């Protein structure tokens, strides 16, 4: 691996970590789409900052972008509060408006400057190692330094306010009653998202920012019940997506950011299918098992109901189940066989008898349904 290859992957990992941390809270708050809005509208802040200072390197661009991120959030909430527009529609109204103003400003006043809209959407990671700056006596890729700093800010913020973020996300009412301002926490988090989006979009573009914020968090949510682990897994999944995406781009000679976003999507899909408890396969297997167990319980209850009565000879026969329980013959055979294997029933000359265990199951099931 060349130095540039390693650097590009490092940048990818750092961007993934920086995005995944606030992304977890966005996903838990049901605000994933806010990352999409903010990662686009920050462009307006950058353009305005550039027009004011005439300098693409000015730190004012970062402030302008962060302010625009917060403006996006508050405009969305303002629209939502009129009760005339729903929350998702409010995002859909605010973000294209601010983004398109930015696009117009670029095409009118900033043509020829490195602010083209393609780069905004997808970035160009391949060139990131060429843009370097001096730090601690060595020449480092600019994106790596900027995103490293932003990842650190995110980590420190979330570590410091972990308790407050958790409380305000789980129960904003109690947070407010206890004197923690949920609004302050909310805007703090949105500030982080904005700064992260600005830092990241230069290197990787806004699509990857959204992918890195939402997909790893959504995937980690399927894997664990603990918030700490969800944060850890999101960072890990994001980093894996970054490295995997880099090599996919390498093999296919494709856009790196696009490949990383795709790879993260693939990782999410794998979690969706194979997550141990919540994955689709696990859920399907559980439902199948429950279906058989329920059928066996029905069988046991049916047998118990007619046990020792004169009609038991007729009711409690294998070939009668299809009439009485409306079961297909094949299904009835299957259920009886499973119940037999579990030691719930005995089959003698086509008539069915409950065992002690079967009687126990039927009585507990009936008791539970009180």
């Amino acid at each position: 691996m060349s130095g540039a290859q390693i650097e590009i992957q490092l940048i990818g990992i750092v961007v993934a970590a920086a995005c995944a941390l606030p992304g977890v809270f966005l996903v838990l708050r049901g605000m994933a789409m806010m990352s999409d809005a903010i990662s686009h509208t920050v462009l307006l802040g950058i353009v305005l900052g550039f027009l004011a200072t005439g300098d693409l390197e000015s730190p004012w661009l970062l402030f302008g972008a962060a302010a625009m991120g917060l403006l996006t959030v508050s405009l969305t909430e303002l629209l939502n509060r009129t009760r005339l527009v729903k929350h998702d529609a409010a995002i859909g109204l605010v973000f294209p408006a601010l983004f398109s103003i930015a696009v117009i400003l670029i095409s009118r006043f900033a043509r020829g400057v490195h602010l083209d809209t393609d780069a905004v959407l997808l970035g160009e990671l391949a060139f990131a190692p060429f843009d370097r700056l001096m730090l601690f006596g060595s020449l480092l890729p600019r994106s790596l330094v900027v995103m490293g700093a932003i990842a650190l800010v995110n980590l420190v913020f979330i570590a410091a306010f972990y308790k407050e973020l958790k409380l305000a996300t789980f129960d904003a009412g109690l947070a407010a009653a206890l004197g923690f301002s949920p609004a302050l926490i909310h805007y703090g988090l949105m500030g982080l998202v904005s700064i992260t989006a600005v830092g990241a979009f230069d290197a990787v573009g806004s699509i990857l920012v959204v992918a890195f914020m939402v997909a790893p968090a959504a995937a980690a949510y399927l894997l664990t019940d603990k918030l700490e682990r969800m944060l850890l897994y999101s960072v890990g999944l994001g980093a894996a997506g970054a490295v995997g995406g880099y090599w996919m781009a390498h093999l296919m000679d494709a856009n790196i950011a696009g490949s990383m976003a795709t790879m993260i999507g693939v990782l999410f899909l794998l979690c969706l299918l194979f997550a141990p408890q919540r994955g689709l396969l696990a859920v399907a297997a559980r439902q199948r098992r429950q279906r058989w167990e329920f059928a066996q319980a029905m069988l046991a209850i049916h047998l118990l109901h007619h046990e020792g009565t004169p009609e038991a000879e007729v009711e409690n026969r294998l070939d009668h189940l299809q009439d009485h329980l409306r079961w297909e013959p094949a299904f009835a055979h299957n259920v009886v066989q499973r119940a037999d294997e579990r030691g719930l029933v005995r089959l003698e000359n086509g008539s069915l008898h409950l065992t002690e265990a079967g009687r126990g199951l039927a009585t507990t099931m009936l008791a539970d349904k009180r």
Partner: protein
Amino acid sequence: MDTKQLAVQVADLTVAYQEKPVLWDVDLDVPQGVLMAIVGPNGAGKTTMLKAILGLLTPAAGHVSIFGKPYQQQRGLVGYVPQRGSVDWDFPTSVLDVVMMGNYGKLGWLRRPGAADRKAALSALEKVGMADYADRQISQLSGGQQQRTFLARALMQDAQVYFMDEPFQGVDATTERAIVDLLKELRAQGKTVLAVHHDLQTVPEYFDWVLLLNVRRIASGPVNEVFTDENLRSAYGGRVGFLNKRQDHESA
């Protein structure tokens, strides 16, 4: 009455959404050490009243004081049990973690809960009969267990006045019994509880004070004085199914 004796004092409280009043000029004095049920028909403003007292929404007019001072200065004395359905029970966290949230107010900003908080949370869980569930993921709880988790969290707040929004809503008989015992224990310790309640029949059994609310305050005071047919009729209007049952019961 000496205001220092009053756990909660509400004066002229008015809350409006847009221009529609939800609470209209409500006055309420709650002495220390009572269990007060807040009852009234749907849309009477019961939850709104709790939220306005706790500063979760801004009233159009009125004052609230807790032991003679504004709520903002008395947060440490107040415990809050929101409606069970107001939070996302799929949130990735454990029962113990939720209970420890009750102590966050005392910890203040930045300070982390420690071993002492864990111990206090475990003993709060024990009081509501949920000690075995401490490490359980909250999405696995039944409705009654969720409610008891919330009560344990309120106990962690170690408050003087508790506000509970429908603590009995949709809970099983065991939980209902556990909550009643807990309320009585709180009263024995001199604490004050205001709870939004729906089941009129159990008001005299579970509570000793009652507020009848329907946008305006219909009546408030000791149950045996104000929980009368006349007051109930003026709070609930035509919907007096409960009253008819009660009369049948009395004449029988």
